[in-house]
């Protein structure tokens, strides 16, 4: 079990699949806000829809376990983060992540890794990708709410937009 605790992350990013237009503004905001290191991977669904794939900041992160240099760590807020100085760009984390959220294309020889915009969240804001979303598809919601509320992801999937798109 990695050090630190996931308890302190109170909110997570939720994508409403029914609203995302695939405009990639979220990725662009991430790119601009992290000195052109795009931490947000676009998931391409059968070449028809493009959906952002966010880091889950897992409780037992496979990327963290896979990193040979301890460049990945859990910070005091519970966010899984990566130290730019320690990262040697070995791709181990990208291979290990079960959600494929760490891009294969490395910038400046380090793995891009979503930090949940800790600078903004710590100051009481929302992550850049959420703030910029042009379709109201991304939201930053309390964990409890995101797990239970059928309003979010699950409910919308049931409306079968994704089936229609594919």
């Amino acid at each position, binding site marked *: 079990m990695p050090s630190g605790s996931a308890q302190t992350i109170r909110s997570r990013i939720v994508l409403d699949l*029914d*609203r995302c*237009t*695939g*405009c*990639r*503004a979220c*990725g*662009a*905001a991430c*790119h*601009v*806000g*992290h*000195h*052109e290191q*795009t931490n947000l991977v676009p998931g391409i669904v059968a*070449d*028809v*829809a493009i959906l952002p794939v966010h880091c889950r900041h897992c409780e037992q992160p496979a990327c963290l376990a896979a990193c040979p240099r301890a460049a990945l760590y859990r910070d005091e807020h519970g966010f899984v983060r990566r130290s730019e100085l320690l990262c040697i760009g070995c791709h181990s984390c990208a291979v290990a992540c079960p959600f494929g959220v760490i891009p294969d294309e490395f910038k400046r020889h380090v793995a891009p890794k979503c930090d949940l*915009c800790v*600078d*903004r969240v710590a*100051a009481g*804001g929302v992550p*850049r990708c959420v*703030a*910029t*979303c*042009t*379709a*109201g598809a991304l939201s930053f919601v309390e964990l409890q709410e995101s797990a239970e509320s059928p309003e979010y992801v699950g409910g919308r999937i049931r409306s079968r*937009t994704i089936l*229609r*798109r594919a």
Partner: protein
Amino acid sequence: MTTDAIAICPFCSMGCTWRLVRDAGTRYRAEAPVAALDYTARGGPNRGSLCGKGNMALELLTHPNRLETPLLRLAGESRAAGWDEALGHVVRRLGEIRARHGGRSVGLLLGSGASSEEAAAAARLARAIGTPHLDLCAPADHALTRGLELAGARPARVENVEQIDAMRAVLVVGDLFTLAPCAAKPVLDARYRDRRHTVAVLAPTRTRTAWFGRPFLRCDVNGEAAALAAMLALALERAQEPAPAWAAEARAALARWPLPDLARRSGVALERAAALAAALAGEGEAGVLLASEFGARARLDLVAALAAMLAEATGARFLAMLEGPNSAGVRAVLRAEGFPGADGHTMPELLEAVVRGDVKALLVFGSDPVAVSPGSLAARAMASAALTVVTAALPGPAVETAEVVLPAAVIGEKAGTVLPALGPSVAMAPVMPPPGWARPDLQVLAALAAALAPDGGAAGVRGGEEPLAARELFAELDLFLRAEGREEVAVEPGELQLLAEASATNAAEGLHTAQLSWARYAHPEARLTVSPALASALGVRAGDRVRVRSNWGQAELAVRLDAGLPEGVVTAPHRDPAVRGLLSWRREPMMRSLDLRPDRVHVEPLGEVGGA
């Protein structure tokens, strides 16, 4: 975080606002006096969001390739020059050309990023020179705004996004979410707030907007005009009152086309068109939202005119979203000033006149006619003119050939008024100074106008055109529908229609966006989208390269598959330099605007050598 300033986005006519803040997240950006975009600017229609292009607004202002010094290209050699020398050169050369060939041998084009004040200054300059040739340089916006002007329809404008939120029936024509992604939120709010709401999308392919259409009215390629005409005829039958002034003429003209015939030509079933016309005319707020992101589509002017008339006839609000941030403002000011005069050239006419040699000097302010228009006409015009002057912020094909290049300020660096698609005019304040010696075009236009005092002999510029009577407009529609009928018959075996791709790729290849990191991030390569059936007929798979040939040129493109494409249609991003060479444009004699209709192409797999 400290707020430094609020600016308007320069990349489409939605008029989103953003602000500059110092932000620890970008502490490595040493070059910018202010460090990052904030997405939470209030007051704009975006309500806190910004699209991928908008996120790069700061990058345009701090771009490393920004032009900073005037350039003179004399005898094939280009060199930096001072402003006095460059402007002196322009004044001298214009004076010579005017003395030899008259004021009418000079033509002016104005980009869509010009402020309304700059449009007025351009009109003064044109008067000083004594030329009636002054127009907007933005092809799709040009066709669309001309259609709206000539229709003379006066539908109620959408004033703010809250009105879109509240609509219970919306018709979207064109790929609104690609052109102006920030418009998605209010439209989707309208759709999801109450699941009985109608958000219809009219398009021939499943565009990014069409995914959300409920219903999605898939029309034939070039079927938009016929579909809108059918809906208009149906709406006029339901006798709204007070009926628009043009209603009687329109009814008489549309009576020539039996409704089933119009429906057949559009590819949209009559019942579906009727249901939508009824929904628009029904109780509560409704809207017709038109986006100029059509690329290669026939007769955008007619589509725009009919969409505006449909809105007026059904009592729906109307919104015309344009590619240029101030295309609407530039056109409105030029029209009020009487440009292009009744005997003046519109943009496509002007480019043709330059190629013919009737117009000798071409002055382009804040645009690149070669980069923004399909086909080779603009490039030929730039090459044939005796004098070419371009003001530009970033390098581009016109900058590379112009005799005089003047570094320009962009929105965000200059003051002035902009008329966005939604709401009233916005007064822009500069958030930072232009780089190097770059200046706002307003100063250049004023300096040139002052130096080129009217020559006594120049004939006054005559006033602008009147709107067409509805009768004439529908005569155009008649001609168009008949011609389309003939063309259907004329397709040769193996011929495909090349449609402009309705994807963010287009957005990434606008005047400036192509040079921002957004373009590299979002769309590294132009691809030809084909249906799986066509791919298997050609024996190619996704990612393979094919050769595309038209009457005008050929290009090699990688293939992408889309099961939703209609038969006989392929799509590609029309502003990609390779694709641009495949396309042509026509000028419509009556509307005098561009017709960006799809070109016929042949596609063949590349042999072993090319495919390796």
